[in-house]
């Protein structure tokens, strides 16, 4: 593994302007992603987890410069990419691809599958028509579609097959980084594992690096090498997957893991589930953003915000990270 990470994000912030109520209310800012830093090495899979609205999608889009960040630095293969114009970003666009939760929404319903898969090749002017068609067939076979499917339209496929189409399109340009935003959340249980296996096979055969977003901790535990837990726009804990699931140290991580239903554990006993909803990012709590819901919160937590600290393997943002077992 080379030393330069594929992606290195430092102090990334993304704020959205939101209008207040009433005609004369001023604009206020919603901090969707707040001072986030992480690195992603070649061949590694980093998962982002957290409740909906915590900023996972925004972080991924900002890191890929699909939505320019408000501040902070993003280095792609060692070179800074924030502030680059669309033209300078074009090579980057080739090497970073996205897969979304709802494959149907991202597939042009009027194009046959063959054309959809070949489209990125066309956009980037790669190969002539026959070559592109050949390549599209090869890609389709790699993701488990049949050559006969190439002339059919997206609506003629099931959700799982559509996700295969989206994946074939995403790998057409031989990207090195794939951002997968809830790629299996909309799929049937029996199809989820097929797609996860496919993503894993592609990772091995093409040395892909994944930024993998999911709210399903069991899927993350299976799929990711490293996990970053987000709360209210910040990373509150990050560690290798095994460490994080076996020895979580942030109270929020523990609560998330405890809330995840597990098969065969028997009926749940109503104990210690996290209360309340995440606070609004428009009006974040003082001190530690988690304190209104935290079972360990103390006076200190209301006053000062804990920094994300620890060795590079396991970082936690909690004043009491060394207390309280699982």
């Amino acid at each position, binding site marked *: 593994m080379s030393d330069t990470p594929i992606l290195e994000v430092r102090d990334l912030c993304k704020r959205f302007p939101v209008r207040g109520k009433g005609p004369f209310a001023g604009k206020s800012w919603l901090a969707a992603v707040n001072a986030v830093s992480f690195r992603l090495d070649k061949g590694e899979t980093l998962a982002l987890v957290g409740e909906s609205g915590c900023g996972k999608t925004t972080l991924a889009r900002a890191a890929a410069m699909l939505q320019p960040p408000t501040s902070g630095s993003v280095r792609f293969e060692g070179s800074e990419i924030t502030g680059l114009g669309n033209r300078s970003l074009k090579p980057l666009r080739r090497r970073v691809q996205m897969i979304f939760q709802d494959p149907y929404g991202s597939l042009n319903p009027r194009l046959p599958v063959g054309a959809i898969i070949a489209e990125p090749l066309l956009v980037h002017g790669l190969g002539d028509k026959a070559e592109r068609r050949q390549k599209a067939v090869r890609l389709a076979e790699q993701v488990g579609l049949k050559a006969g499917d190439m002339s059919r339209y997206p609506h003629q496929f099931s959700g799982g097959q559509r996700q295969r189409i989206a994946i074939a399109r995403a790998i057409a340009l031989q990207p090195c980084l794939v951002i997968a935003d809830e790629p299996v959340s909309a799929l049937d*249980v029996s199809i989820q*594992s097929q797609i996860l*296996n496919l993503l894993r096979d592609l990772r091995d055969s093409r040395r892909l690096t994944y930024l993998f977003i999911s709210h399903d901790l069991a899927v993350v535990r*299976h799929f990711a090498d490293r996990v970053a837990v987000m709360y209210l726009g910040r990373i509150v804990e990050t560690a290798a997957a095994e460490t994080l699931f076996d020895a979580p140290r942030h109270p929020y991580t523990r609560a998330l893991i405890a809330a995840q*239903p*597990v098969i065969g554990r028997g*009926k749940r006993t109503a104990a210690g*589930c996290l209360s309340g909803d995440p606070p609004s990012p428009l009006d974040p709590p003082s001190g530690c953003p988690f304190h209104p819901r935290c079972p360990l919160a103390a006076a200190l937590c209301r006053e000062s915000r804990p920094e994300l600290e620890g060795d590079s393997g396991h970082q936690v943002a909690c004043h009491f990270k060394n207390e309280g077992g699982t």
Partner: protein
Amino acid sequence: MPEVLETSQDSAAAALEVRQLEVVFATDASPLKAADKVSFAVPAGRTLGLVGESGCGKSVTALAILGLVPPPGLITGGQILFNGDDLPSLPERRMEDIRGARISMIFQEPMTALNPVFSIGSQVAEALRIHRRTSRPEAWKAAVEMLARVGIADAAARAGDYPHQLSGGMRQRAMIAMALICRPEVLIADEPTTALDVTTQAQILDLMMAMQRDLGLAILFISHDLGVISEIADEVAVMYAGAIVEQAPAGELFERPLHPYTRGLIETLPGAGPRLPRLAAIAGQVPDLGALPRGCRFSDRCPLADDECGASEPTLAAAGERRRVACWKAAP
């Protein structure tokens, strides 16, 4: 038939019993059987989990119980026994008296399932106004109490809020308050936590269990999520392409699944054990209800399928004391 024997054993304590239910959608192509000889019983104070992939007929079964199958769907056979009555044969007016008062239902998407132009207080109170003819102020008071009971803080003030002003979890709590305010005997919950975060899901599951204890509710809990079903159900029925293929007490089902489909579903899930490079997978896709394979409906995806399976369809038969399974190869 062992099956009928067994269901009638349960029926003494069953708050709700469905027998050989058939629901057909008369579409342009061939008629689809969204529910094919579906039978189960839900005893008072217990939870039956109905689990299966999308499109397998869970919602249709639930709606059939309340007589709310959307056209062109029709109940074409079977019985739904509640309180000594066969629900599909009751006149609509009598069904209206049962819905929301004695059998209630909550839905997946609490945002769209609540009316956006009325306050949650008035929507909760409405059930009382319909069934108990309570006066407006009284119903409002009862609604506020009910909202407080389902864990909405500052309920007196929140009751005036409209659905868009609440979080997803709060909306689902309001739905539950609405469903339970008339103290029904049966609650049908159709994927009530699917649209929620895991943390909120846990809260809602706890709330439902607490309400079950308080009211002695029989709950039919529908979900595609085996984990959720495992945490809330006493008994589980697994549905595949319109039919129940296996039914068992929850512990036994997850410990020792008998049907190859159930086994497949459990094995495909990334579990808590050591991380494997690949997940097990069920080959193929969920079949279209209009184009089921011949013989066993799972035969085109089943690893154990042989000629016998393609020739004739296995019926749901007793397999041990409280288990039923529809498979030629399932040794009890």
